[in-house]
C-alpha cells in the first residue's frame, strides 16, 4: 500500500475531515480515539492477513508510524 492509499484509508477509517499528511501528529487528530484504534487493528488483520501488536499502534505518534507498522 502506498502512502497516498494509506492516508485515504486512514481518513475513511477515522471519519475525519481534518487534512492529514504522513507527518500529522495523532494526538492532534480528534478522531484518533478508541474507535479508530480498534478499527485500525481490524483493518490490519483484514488487509494484511496478520495480527499487528496493539502496543505498537498504541505507541504510534504520527500517521507515518502507523504506515510503518502496516508495512513491516
Amino acid at each position, binding site marked *: 500500500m502506498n502512502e497516498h492509499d494509506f492516508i485515504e484509508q486512514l481518513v475513511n477509517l477515522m471519519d475525519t475531515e481534518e487534512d492529514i499528511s504522513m507527518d500529522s501528529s495523532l494526538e492532534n487528530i480528534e478522531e484518533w480515539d478508541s*474507535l479508530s484504534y480498534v478499527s485500525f487493528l*481490524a483493518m490490519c488483520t483484514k488487509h494484511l492477513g496478520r495480527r499487528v501488536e496493539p502496543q505498537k499502534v498504541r505507541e504510534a505518534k504520527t500517521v507515518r508510524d502507523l504506515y510503518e507498522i502496516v508495512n513491516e
Partner: protein
Amino acid sequence: MSKVYISIGDYAIREIEESDLSQLLEWRNSPEIHSKMLTDHIITWDEHLAWFKKIKEQDPTLNFAFVYQDKLVGYAGYTKYDPVTKTGDGGSYLAPELDLPVDAGIYSGELLLYYGFETLGIKKTVTDVFLDNERVVKMNKLMGSKIISSHKLKKGGKVKEVVTMELTYEDWRKSFYREFFL
C-alpha cells in the same frame, strides 16, 4: 489502600473514595460529558454526596473509579442492575482534559463488562445512547452490542433519537476486539 476489583495492564477499576468525589463531579458535569448524558440535570454537590453514601452501601459494588497507572482518570459503573433478570445498564466516562492513551476508552468499557459478566453474573447489558453520539454507537457495535429499539427523548429543548443497545454475554465473549487486548 483502595480495593481494586479488576485490572488489566496499566488500567483498573477500584472502589470510589471520598477524595475522588470532587473530581468525578467536575468531569460528570463538564460540557463534554454532560452533552452525552440522557438527563439534562446538572448534579449538585449534595446530590453527589448522597449518591456516594448510597453506593457505599450497595452489595454488590456497582460503581467504580477508573484508574490508569494508579491515577484517577474516569468513572465506570452500572446505574441499573437487576439480579433477578441478570441485566445491567452500564456506562463510563473519561476525564475530558487528560491526555490519555488511545486505548483508555476500550479498557474502561472492557473492565466494566468483565466485572458485570464474570463477577456479577449478568447475562446482558442494556444501554440507551443518543443516536447522534455516533462514535459511541459504533464502538458499542464493535464490542458486540446490537440496537434492539429506539425512542425519542427531549434534551436541551430538542427532541432527540435514542437507541437501546443490548450486549449479551455470548456476543461479548466472541467479540473480535477482545483477542487484541486480553
